[in-house]
């Protein structure tokens, strides 16, 4: 099985690391570079600063866990989504903007690929893991709304990323498509 992780920010980097023992091929897609502030809230180590995120995570998986992965340090667009996600058996969306989510969603629906999304509220109090059949991306409340770059919501990010990784695991192992809501109070299954 080939799993393509789209977006390696706080959610994507953490979830990909938690999926390292599934026995699947991991493909990592992100155009961005690791910055020093990312170390506070994302799954990158200090030595990765300056590297492309996909390449950095590929190195971490190899060096720390002996896990091979493929890295695509490019921006996913309508022009390349078929090439990047076409070989996937499962696509995982952890993008941080609605436009990119819509590109990968349109691809998945067109190609009939399983796609699971994960997203967090700006205040770090609520998260969603939802399969594409039931997912519509939300717009920001306001332009330039802050993400979790400062690390303030790192524990909650971990909770949502773990919930996403569990959803991926359930799909890989049993073909299930479980949705979940994550709050400060609990992780609640909401549908499949």
């Amino acid at each position, binding site marked *: 099985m080939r799993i393509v992780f789209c977006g390696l920010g706080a959610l994507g980097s953490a979830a990909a690391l938690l999926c390292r023992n599934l026995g699947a091929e991991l493909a990592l897609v992100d155009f961005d570079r690791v910055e020093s502030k990312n170390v506070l809230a994302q799954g990158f180590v200090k030595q990765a600063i300056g590297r492309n995120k996909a390449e950095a995570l590929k190195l971490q998986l190899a060096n720390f866990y002996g896990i091979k992965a493929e890295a695509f340090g490019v921006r996913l667009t309508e022009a390349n989504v078929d090439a990047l996600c076409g070989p996937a058996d499962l696509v995982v969306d952890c993008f941080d903007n609605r436009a990119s989510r819509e590109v990968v969603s349109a691809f998945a629906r067109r190609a009939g690929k399983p796609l699971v999304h994960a997203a967090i509220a700006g205040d770090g*109090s609520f998260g*969603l893991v939802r399969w594409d059949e039931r997912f519509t991306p939300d717009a920001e409340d306001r332009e330039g*709304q802050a993400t979790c770059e400062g690390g303030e919501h790192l524990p909650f990010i971990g909770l949502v990323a773990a919930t996403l990784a569990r959803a991926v695991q359930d799909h890989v192992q049993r073909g299930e498509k479980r949705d979940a809501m994550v709050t400060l109070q609990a992780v609640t299954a909401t549908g499949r």
Partner: protein
Amino acid sequence: MMVTLNITLQGVSADYALALDGEVSDREIKSIALEVVRSGEVPGLHIRDLAENAFDNYVVDRFDTEEGGRRIYLRPKVPFGATPCRVSETP
């Protein structure tokens, strides 16, 4: 029609059984939620002086259950992004 309205607010999520006469708008759902949270009718989610605009930027999701029922989720937005975009208002 009995539906389950799930309200997530300030990191807490709770269900409320709601009797509806057909479809209702997002605005009506938010209004109902405001009242039931203020009145203490939602288990574990009682905020007497909840602000009038508490649910303004919330999203309403509607799903049919496998058992033939309906669940409505009133939840915070999950944009998690810093890309400039236009905000559209829900009805």
